[in-house]
């Protein structure tokens, strides 16, 4: 950052370090035993522990979704009572959002990749990182306790006064989410400090991988918005426990104030869920198009712009809640402004593919699916931002379909893309390319079958969170349910071939995709300390027109250096005095 004209260009001696192929010792086997895993401060292992946790919660949330869809096959009761149904949709929402989407990319994939992409040995605060994981686990335990001690039926938004008067363990659940918030805050804090302070020599801000720009923007939202959720849920918990009356109209409070508080966090939280996805898309598109990313700064800054504007649009969840027309006007206008940087990203990605050398491997397939589905999610967002139309569509299935297109069609596809992309790096094993594409195809078909009919139902007036519905919607509901089952099959296939890959997979080379990004310039799986040298960066992570040898430079450090590589020393001008 601190570039002053007087900084002398210092010459440093670097060597080329070709990554060791199929290393005998790597982070997965350098420390052994369950205890070593549970107490590890290694960001890669913590990332994998998160990955297992989010996979577990995705499974739980997914099964709940299938239960809901099955219940909705017919207008009347199938096999759940209304009360059970309400608890199931509440849990589906809460688990998917708080336990899967929010930690999925930042905490699971981000933890694994971020220090690797920076050339750092770890995140800035490894013990804090482990603490974040356990805070997440404690939050999850609270939630599970809540489920088994009465359950909750408020919807994931916990609107007052319903949430302050209904039965069940609302306080336990909100406390769980409150605790979870700290996990999210501390992860964000860790990432910001790591990106600021632990970059390898030569990683200037304009050579930062776009994935890190995405994570940086996400972390900013996490540290600025999550505390507001924390205080909101603390107040709500107190409302339940002590009846403090700030949100409960029966005691003189105001329920709309709760909605303002809640959405001030929860709208930015939507961007916590999607912005890291943008980062992954940029990485994968560039790698599999083998081409310089188009509009690096446009993509990087649009993530920050989205994060910033995201703080100013919470009121668009309340267009029908009786806010003033002026407030509605402002929030509607700002909402549309989010559309511009989002559109810019889509066009930049397309432009990156133009004249590229496109290899349709599974990660790329997921990203193309992302582009299609997320575009639909974006346009339907424009529809919902238009005030007069939103009055009609608010709280209908149209909204349900919209956010599933953004969250599932967007974030989950990006997550799957990222998971396949970094899988060889994580485990040193390849997955089945054939089954990967089959599963992607099945999920694509199933997803659209599930949610396209919901746009139509919603436009026709089908309200969300309905246990019963009038007969005219039955055909749509049934179609949607069948789509959900098909999607379920797709995910089962993914689970099967990934497990197979873990156990019997073919060994992966250090850089199976021919990427120029830093994390691919070390072994697969990496060493416990990521690199056996200090990487030195002179090119951007997307400079596909430059030879690979320029991306494998480093300094052998006395700390952990192994100086037995072929000598290809060269002088690199260190123009910026980067401490890290």
């Amino acid at each position, binding site marked *: 950052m601190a570039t002053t004209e007087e900084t002398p260009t210092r010459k440093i001696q670097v060597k080329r370090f070709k990554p060791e192929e199929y290393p005998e010792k790597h982070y997965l086997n350098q420390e052994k035993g369950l205890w070593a895993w549970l107490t590890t401060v290694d960001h890669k292992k913590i990332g994998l522990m998160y990955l297992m946790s989010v996979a577990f919660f995705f499974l739980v949330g997914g099964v709940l979704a299938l239960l809901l869809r099955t219940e909705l096959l017919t207008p009347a009761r199938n096999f759940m009572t209304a009360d059970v149904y309400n608890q199931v949709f509440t849990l589906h929402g809460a688990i998917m959002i708080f336990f899967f989407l929010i930690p999925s990319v930042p905490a699971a994939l981000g933890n694994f990749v971020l220090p690797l992409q920076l050339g750092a040995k770890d995140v800035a605060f490894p013990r804090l990182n482990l603490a974040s994981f356990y805070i997440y686990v404690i939050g999850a335990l609270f939630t599970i306790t809540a489920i088994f001690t009465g359950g909750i039926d408020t919807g994931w938004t916990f609107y007052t006064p319903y949430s302050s008067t209904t039965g069940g363990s609302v306080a336990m659940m909100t406390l769980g989410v409150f605790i979870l918030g700290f996990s999210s805050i501390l992860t964000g*804090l860790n990432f910001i400090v790591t990106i600021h302070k632990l970059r390898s020599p030569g990683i200037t801000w304009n050579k930062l991988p776009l994935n890190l720009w995405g994570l940086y923007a996400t972390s900013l939202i996490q540290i600025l918005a999550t505390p507001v959720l924390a205080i909101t849920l603390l107040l709500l918990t107190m409302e339940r426990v002590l009846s403090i009356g700030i949100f409960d109209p029966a005691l003189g409070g105001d329920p709309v*104030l709760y909605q303002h508080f809640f959405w001030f966090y929860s709208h930015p939280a939507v961007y916590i869920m999607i912005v890291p996805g943008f980062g992954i898309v940029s990485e994968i598109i560039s790698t599999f198009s083998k081409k310089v990313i188009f509009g690096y700064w446009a993509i990087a800054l649009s993530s920050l712009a989205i994060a910033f504007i995201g703080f100013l649009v919470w009121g668009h969840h309340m267009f029908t809640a009786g806010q003033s027309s002026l407030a509605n006007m402002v929030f509607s206008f700002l909402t549309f402004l989010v559309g511009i940087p989002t559109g810019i990203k889509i066009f930049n990605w397309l432009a990156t593919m133009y004249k590229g050398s496109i290899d349709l491997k599974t990660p790329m397939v997921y990203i193309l699916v992302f582009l299609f589905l997320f575009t639909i999610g974006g346009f339907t967002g424009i529809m919902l931002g238009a005030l007069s139309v939103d009055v009609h569509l608010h709280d209908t299935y149209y909204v349900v379909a919209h956010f599933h297109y953004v969250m599932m069609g967007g974030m989950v596809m990006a997550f799957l893309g990222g998971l396949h992309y970094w899988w060889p790096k994580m485990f040193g094993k390849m997955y089945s390319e054939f089954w990967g594409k089959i599963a992607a195809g099945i999920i694509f078909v199933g997803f659209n079958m599930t949610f396209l009919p919901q746009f139509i139902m919603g436009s026709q007036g089908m309200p969300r969170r309905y246990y019963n519905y009038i007969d005219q919607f039955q055909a749509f509901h049934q179609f949607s349910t069948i789509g959900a089952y098909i999607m379920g099959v797709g995910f089962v296939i993914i689970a099967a071939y990934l497990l197979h890959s873990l156990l019997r997979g073919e060994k992966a080379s250090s850089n199976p995709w021919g990427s120029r990004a830093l994390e691919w310039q070390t072994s697969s799986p990496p060493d416990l300390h990521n690199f056996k040298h200090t990487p030195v960066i002179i090119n951007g992570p997307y400079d596909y027109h430059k030879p690979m040898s320029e991306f494998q430079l480093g300094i052998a450090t006395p700390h952990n250096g192994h100086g037995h590589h072929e000598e290809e020393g060269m002088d690199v001008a260190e123009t910026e005095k980067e401490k890290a």
Partner: protein
Amino acid sequence: MSGTSATIEKRLDHLQHHFIDSDQQFESAKLGMWIFLATEILFFGGLFAAYIVYRSWYPELYIQASTELNTFWGAINTGVLIGSSLTVAMAIRSAQLNQIKGLIYNLYITIALAFVFMVIKYFEYTHKFHLGIYPGEYYTFEGIAHEKANIFFSIYYMMTGVHGLHVLIGIGLMIWLVFKAKKGAFHSGYYTPVEITGLYWHLVDIIWIFLFPLLYLID
């Protein structure tokens, strides 16, 4: 601090493996703490927002209800916290100068002042409970002719309660610092925990400086 003079023996046992040098570690910790303070401000910001909203709706309630708060003890507490901020700053100064005894004494004084604050707070709370001024539903006091009086005190209890919790956490942190200091963990080359705890303590102090006039001094 990186200027290694001959008199100061450079000790590196505190340096964690993933940092290049002490400076990088120190700066990372400090940046981390500043970011944490930002989240703290937003955390309290939610309470301040609730305060502002209700005050703009019921300005007369705030004027009436604040008379129930004891300005004298509130002012004393403000003085106590400002004093403790001073001593914590002196503790950091002592650490920088390698005066470990001074560090420990200053931490002791800070802890004592924090306890004084909590004790005064305890008497303020019990006095109100005695009058029947409980939060929300349990509010039974009849001295204020306003139907939303319970909400003012809900906000009062939430704000001062959460702040009090922060004071308690601060006490815990400083006791931990004393233990570490006695073991000789800190010296002029490494006093990061003292520095960032000090930052935290200043924040706790500043929040009280906002709470005091907002709650006690409404005319």
